[in-house]
């Protein structure tokens, strides 16, 4: 069942065009020219219950604006959005009971209060039963190690500690849907892994739908089942990691050591990049194929004694995807 449905979601901001120079600045003051900037342009996608979707794109792509519309912070200019059947901007308070959100760069907790007091206030705001609250807090403590610092004021916590408290705060009312905007930004590797494990638990064991934005490709690799890419406010990819690799990461190399050392090596659909005795490096040829397909084609033709696959790492794939989109829109 779909937890989130966005259809043709569009958000346009109206701003004053800045003219260059001092005189330009004065002109803008006297006769301002209003311009419309479309931050999100006709984006459609859905997220199922128990699915983790990574919403990715370069800086300024429209990810945060999309999340703000899905959470009810912003009203869409056009299009529709339903989160657990609720239109977030029309019924903000009911929507707030259904969702949880973490914006990694700023806290949603009371800056001067210890984390535990903040969580207790949220318990009261969301009307969580005392027993249920104790049980959830204990679970979050087990997974995130909160009790080491939950009596410290938020302003004195490290970033990693603060975001772990924010995660607990976002889930204290047991929401079906969770939005995470760069939740692990600035964390050390140990805490990052702890948070990733926590998120995996929330998706796999608790069946929550999670929308994650991040620039950390390790996170995407380890967590995302599905990826949505947006750039310049438009969605240009919606699929699995494998599909993403096959579409934008086709610059792999397969290094094989052949059992013989033939003078000529040729495999239809593959390109020979290097040939040095028995050692051959293949790359994708016309109609780029996957590494699995390449292996099948090589093994069908040659006996091999050794094999290494070099795939682009995800960052290369993403760079390729973003650049591809830039070229399409240019």
């Amino acid at each position: 069942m779909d937890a989130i449905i966005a259809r043709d979601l569009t958000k346009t901001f109206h701003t004053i065009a800045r003219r260059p120079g001092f005189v330009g600045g004065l002109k803008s003051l006297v006769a301002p020219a209003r311009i419309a900037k479309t931050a999100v342009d006709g984006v459609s996608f859905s997220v199922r219950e128990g699915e983790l979707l990574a919403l990715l794109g370069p800086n300024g792509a429209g990810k945060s604006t999309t999340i703000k519309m899905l959470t009810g912070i912003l009203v869409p200019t056009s299009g529709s959005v339903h989160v657990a059947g609720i239109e977030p901007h029309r019924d903000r308070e009911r929507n707030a009971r259904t969702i949880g959100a973490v914006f990694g760069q700023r806290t949603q907790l009371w800056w001067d209060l210890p984390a535990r007091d903040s969580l207790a206030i949220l318990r009261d705001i969301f009307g969580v039963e005392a027993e249920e609250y104790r049980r959830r807090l204990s679970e979050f403590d087990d997974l995130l190690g909160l009790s080491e610092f939950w009596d410290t004021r938020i302003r004195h916590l490290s970033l990693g500690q603060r975001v772990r408290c924010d995660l607990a705060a976002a889930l204290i009312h047991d929401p079906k849907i969770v939005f995470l905007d760069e939740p692990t930004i600035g964390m050390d590797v140990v805490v990052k892994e702890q948070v990733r494990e926590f998120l995996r638990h929330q998706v796999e064991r608790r069946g929550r739908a999670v929308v994650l934005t991040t620039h950390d490709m390790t996170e995407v690799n380890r967590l995302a089942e599905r990826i949505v890419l947006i750039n310049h406010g438009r969605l240009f990819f919606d699929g699995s990691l494998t599909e993403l690799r096959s579409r934008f990461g086709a610059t792999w190399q397969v290094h094989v050591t052949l059992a013989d050392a033939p003078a000529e090596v040729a495999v239809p659909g593959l390109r020979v990049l290097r040939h040095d005795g028995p050692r051959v490096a293949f790359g994708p040829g016309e109609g780029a194929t996957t590494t699995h397909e390449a292996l099948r084609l090589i093994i069908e033709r040659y006996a091999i004694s050794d094999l290494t696959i070099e795939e682009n790492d995800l960052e290369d794939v993403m760079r390729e995807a973003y650049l591809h989109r830039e070229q399409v829109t240019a």
Partner: protein
Amino acid sequence: MGLVWRITRLNFRAVLEYRAEFMLKVAVGAAWQISVVVFATVLLTRFPGMGGWATSDVLLLASMRLLSHGLYVLLLGRVTWTHIIVQLGQIDAFMLRPMPVYRQVQLAFFNVNAVGDLLVAASLFAGAVLVVDVDWTPARIVYLVVALVGGVLAEGAIGTVLGSIALHAPATAYWSLWLDEMMTAFGNYPLHILPGLVRDAFTFVVPLAFVAYLPAAVLTGHVDTLAVPGWLAVASPLVGLLAYLASRLLWKRSLRAYKGYGGT
């Protein structure tokens, strides 16, 4: 109400833990109001009978204004900090909770300055009530209380209008400061001593007259000196309420057009 009280109590406890900061803020609130009182005292001793009002009448007016202001700062004053709350990204966080955003703005922190404001204002008010030549009948006492609430709401309306604009334009911080200065400079005296244009601006543009001047005129029997009909002066608390309700509608509209803070 229980939840509001609980959050306020926790916020108060939080500010208590920074003792030096707490004491400094209480002291500056008191110092601010004392300087206003000293200035008013100098004025009243040099020019007794300001605009036909006896010194004790002006004292009642000034104390009502200061007490309304202290209560406003305590109960509704956080709305003038909206520009900072927006810049910290807290409005976004407030919209993720099943509670009105306006209420969350008011519960964002405990404004310690209000303690100092109220200490001075309450002392001055107690003295003014004792010395002013007013027969304190039950009806007048009720009207005084209602007038103070109306004063809080009238100032709340001004703050809420500024807060509504601050949701989109943080530069309203300067307007808040300027208005606070204006209200401190002119709100404690009978406004009919000012030129007609300024008096009308403080009545119909910025509802300063409804905070204390008009209700004090009703209580001290100076309705005949006013430039507004007597019934409007009597209805000052109602004007404060209506102005506040209108400002809340503006806040609601402004919040709906909120553009968020931070990246795209």
